[in-house]
């Protein structure tokens, strides 16, 4: 059963086309790497999938619900129900501690989450001791884990990671890639990783090579 389906999606910024007749399907439980250099259309694709942008043409469906059309409130609702995103640097709300960040995410997604659930998730991430720490008090690795915990606490159907390893050395990049794959497996979440980091290719069985908004190769 397909969770995410993009059909003939095109998008242009002014006169410059970013995506052209783009097709993509992710089934429930898929783990997909979208590889492409800067400007290849990865971020635009994430914005379209999340409903922040509307495609010029084509359709995008998530769990049978169309996110490429309708009012902003309707698109917000689809995103809230199905998607979590981990950004490269936009990770956590700076004024709140880690536990409060997770609670806030759950509240905004309208998910019933108990303090025990949050503790268990932080334990799983190995950062339970940082529950009351502010984001600036965490190391880069801890912050990344906290951001992943925040994304998973809402039990998303689709977890999108945008450039999760770009600032990391090879060892840490490897750790993050494994963590993403393990978590998506444990939590039964479909995973879409958008990156230009070639080091991640070996970890994914499903890879989409994107160049100038056109799929060059699907492995």
């Amino acid at each position, binding site marked *: 059963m397909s969770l995410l389906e993009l059909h003939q999606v095109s998008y242009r910024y002014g006169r410059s086309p970013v995506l052209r007749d783009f097709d993509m399907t992710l089934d429930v439980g898929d783990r997909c790497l979208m590889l492409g250099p800067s400007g290849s259309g990865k*971020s*635009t694709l994430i*914005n379209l999938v999340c409903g922040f942008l509307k495609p010029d043409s084509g359709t995008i469906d998530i769990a049978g619900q169309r996110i490429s059309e309708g009012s902003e409130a309707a698109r*917000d609702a689809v*995103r809230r129900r199905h998607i979590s995103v981990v950004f490269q640097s936009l990770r956590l709300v*700076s004024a*709140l501690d880690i536990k409060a960040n997770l609670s*806030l995410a759950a509240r905004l997604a309208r998910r019933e989450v108990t303090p025990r659930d949050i503790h268990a998730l932080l334990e799983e991430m190995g950062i339970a001791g940082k529950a009351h720490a502010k984001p600036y008090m965490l190391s880069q690795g801890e912050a990344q884990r906290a951001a992943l915990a925040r994304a998973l606490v809402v039990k998303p159907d689709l977890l999108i990671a945008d450039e999760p390893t770009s600032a990391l050395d090879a060892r840490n990049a490897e750790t993050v890639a494994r963590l993403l794959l393990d978590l998506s497996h444990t939590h039964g979440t479909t995973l879409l990783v958008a990156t230009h980091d070639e080091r991640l290719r070996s970890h994914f069985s499903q890879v989409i090579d994107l160049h100038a908004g056109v799929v060059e190769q699907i492995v």
Partner: protein
Amino acid sequence: MIGLVKAYLLERKLTTALNVLLLAISVAMLTLLLQFARQSEERFLEGAEGIDLVIGAKGSPLQLVLSSVYHLDQPTGNIPLSALERLRHNPLVASAIPLALGDQFAGFRIVGTKSELFDLYSAKLQSGKTFEAPLEAVIGSAVAEETGAGLGQRFIGSHGLAENAEGQGHEHTPFIVVGILEPTGKPIDRLILTSVESVWDVHGIQHDHGTAEDDHDGHEDAAEAHHADADHGSHGAYGVHGPREPMVPEITAILLNYRSPAAAVRLPSTINRNTALQAASPAQESSRLILLFEPAIEALGGFAVLLAATGALAIFVALWSAMRSREGDLALLRVMGASRAAIFGTVLLEGVMTALVAAALGILAAHGLLWLASETLHSVGEAGIGPGHLLPEEIAILAGAAALGALAAVIPAWTVMRNNLAPILGRN
């Protein structure tokens, strides 16, 4: 979202504290003015409650009311005793209470009067009895508290009405405290009350019995004792007379109550036009006095409002710069499912919360300052100004502050709400 707003405010502690302080100062100033104006007005109106008209010597009507009702100013002079008798027999008059002023003890005025004055100020005896015999005195609660005088205590009055008056003491005619009044919050708390005849006796004025007061024994003895070595200087209503100058019994003022509302129309104008006396309405003179203060209070109020506007501007600047640095956070909230309205509400709430905290602190500070001033500044306590209670206008100040906070936040909130997420997410 309240938790998030609280966290944002605490994240910028210094900026938040300064904004709160600025607005709190203006709110405190407004509250102080409001309380001062209201309490002064209440004290004035309470003080004059039950007194329809004051009769005294010609002069300033405000001075007559201030000296006879509130016991704050110097009397306008004395009036003949016969005026009291005439007014008592006037069909328009329900009651006429004489006042004879001129002396003081420890800064508290000694007032020669009748015990009916207690009823006029709704004063009750806390202990002892009312004055009957010559040189018996009943003291107000503030007099008892501040001088430590108790029942049976003897004291010597001095010429003049001010505490620092340099008049001579009446050593040969000491008063004795026979009663202490319960606190009323009215001018009577600060008075020493005795019979009019006792005031005459102290000043060596011969008088017939049964004039201003019922029969008393011993006035002649007291008067004679006074005459043995009387040497008065200028002091209050009984101010200008030499040692051998024959004096006639006089009083300083009369407090009147009308028998019917019609008296209010006829009596003051008749007295002012046809006699050598002056009639002044405490209600009118109090209003006139309050009106005199109004421009100053309004000017200070205007300054406080200007200060509040500066506070709102500071909140606006703080929120505007915070929104620039918080763009990413707010975009993240949108990604996590917050609607644009929720983002707008979050920023608006931040402005409103800042202003509400400031207003609450300002109001608390104002009441605290009033309490402190009433405890430490003699003149403030004497004027009956205290911490006061929460006025409806203070609730309006709170609401106004909340509106000001919302107004200061509306532009930053609108700007953030309209933000396009894609470029912000792309930047990061």
